[in-house]
């Protein structure tokens, strides 16, 4: 009996061991299946080298002007980024804007960049020109600290280019252990001169929309930015652009233009105020060679003038980001002085001065409510060269970057 029991127990033990081993094999087999399935699923989500991303910004607001109160904005600027490979990037920005005529669609830029090496990038297409920094880096609504642009830095009374079509080489290099510089050299169509033969009152103005060049000459330009401090807090930039601007086969064919800009940026932490300090400034100067234009007041006569325009601004802002109060550390205080000087002897000449002070409230790092008080004084035959009317204005805008 004991033998029978012994053999029975042995058989049961063998049975259980084999069952356990078999079950383990099955589990291993199932685990391998699971890993394969997981690997397949992960591979399905592998991003590859081609990547598409849409970013952009938008704004809306209300403006209390001297002669009217109006809601503005509803503008939307989608930015399309297509990363073709580690070396090739396409970028484009559209501007969809509501105007009195309806909805306007504009192409701010559309260019491809090829990263030649660590220090040289080649760009081709329509790109934002590094003529100073406002047009290239600071104009987006969620980056611009105030609801309006400085005088001469938007399409009204524009002094200096914002974008153009051509080719550019740019990059950054170290110049010492503490300092580095960035550079840009470009060749573009350049601005075109309004000869005044069709619109006599605009004779001598430069138009920066020249998508099919009006002559064989190309415009050359560039910018050098120096960052001399070890923490990159200070950047000083020098820009220049030269080219002929007249229409081919006319007396304006050899009329040249010389454009210069100096820009400054200083961003630092002020520990004693528990704040960030941001100082920005830019001076643009545009000179067109002397030549005569049809006199708007007498079609049979010509007139000439020294065709030099200047636009400049200085801006200071402070954000008490490091104080221990969740309301006050989202505030920002801004002040800006801006001036536009157009040739005084031209019928479109004159001077505008703009002073703007504002308070911003940041909902997060890229969403802001901006409230500003602005004055605009004009001295010239024209009633101001800004989109805003003369006098005082209150501006309340909301901007988002995404």
């Amino acid at each position, binding site marked *: 009996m004991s033998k029978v029991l012994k053999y029975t127990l042995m058989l049961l033990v063998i049975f259980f061991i084999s069952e356990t081993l078999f079950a383990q094999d099955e589990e291993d087999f199932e685990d391998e299946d699971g890993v394969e399935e997981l690997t397949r699923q992960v591979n399905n989500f592998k991003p590859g080298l081609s990547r598409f991303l849409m*970013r952009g910004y938008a704004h809306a607001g209300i403006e209390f002007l001297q002669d009217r109160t109006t809601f503005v904005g509803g503008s939307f600027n989608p930015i399309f980024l297509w990363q073709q490979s580690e070396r090739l990037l396409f970028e484009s920005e559209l501007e969809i804007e509501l105007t009195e005529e309806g909805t306007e669609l504009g192409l701010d830029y559309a260019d491809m960049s090829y990263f030649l090496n660590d220090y040289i990038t080649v760009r081709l297409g329509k790109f934002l020109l590094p003529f100073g920094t406002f047009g290239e880096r600071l104009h987006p609504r969620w980056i611009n600290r105030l609801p309006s642009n400085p005088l001469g830095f938007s399409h009204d009374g524009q002094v200096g280019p914002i974008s153009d079509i051509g080719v550019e080489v740019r990059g*950054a*290099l170290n110049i010492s252990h503490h300092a580095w510089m960035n550079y840009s050299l470009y060749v573009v169509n350049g601005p075109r001169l309004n000869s005044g033969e069709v619109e006599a009152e605009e004779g001598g103005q430069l138009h920066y929309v020249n998508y099919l060049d009006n002559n064989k000459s190309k415009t050359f330009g560039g910018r050098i930015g120096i960052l001399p401090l070890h923490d990159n807090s200070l950047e000083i930039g020098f820009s220049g652009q030269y080219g002929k601007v007249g229409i081919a086969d006319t007396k304006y064919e050899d009329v040249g233009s010389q454009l210069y800009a100096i820009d400054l940026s200083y961003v630092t932490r002020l520990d004693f105020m528990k704040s960030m300090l941001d100082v920005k400034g830019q001076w643009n100067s545009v000179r067109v060679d002397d030549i005569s234009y049809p006199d708007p007041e007498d079609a049979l006569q010509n007139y000439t003038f020294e065709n030099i325009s200047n636009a400049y601004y200085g801006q200071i802002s402070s954000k008490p980001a490091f104080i221990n109060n969740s309301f006050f550390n989202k505030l920002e205080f801004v002040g800006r002085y801006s001036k536009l000087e157009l040739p005084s002897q031209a019928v479109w000449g004159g001077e505008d001065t703009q002073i703007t002070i504002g308070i911003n409230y940041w909902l997060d790092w890229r969403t802001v409510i901006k409230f500003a008080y602005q004055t605009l004084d004009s001295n010239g035959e024209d009633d101001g060269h800004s989109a805003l009317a003369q006098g005082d204005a209150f501006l309340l805008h909301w901007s988002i970057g995404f």
Partner: protein
Amino acid sequence: MKSKKYIINTLLGMFFATTLFIVGCSSTQDVALAKSGAQLWGENCVRCHNAPSPTAFSDIQWETIGQHMRIRANLTAQQTDKVVEFLKMAN
């Protein structure tokens, strides 16, 4: 007047070319090597806008944004890589 203009333009062109040459021949030791990605993120982003939250975008999106910002802010490849790596790590 024209010759004066061309002299000024030529001098400015020479200034650009000479500066690039000098910089090209200078020490190749990259300042960015000595700085962390977090430091470069804090220093360079705020030159134009508030420093972005690392959680605002995915790791893959940061790579594309890094390329975009390398062009816009004129950063070197090493600076860009360090900032992107920091943002991905902190994400």
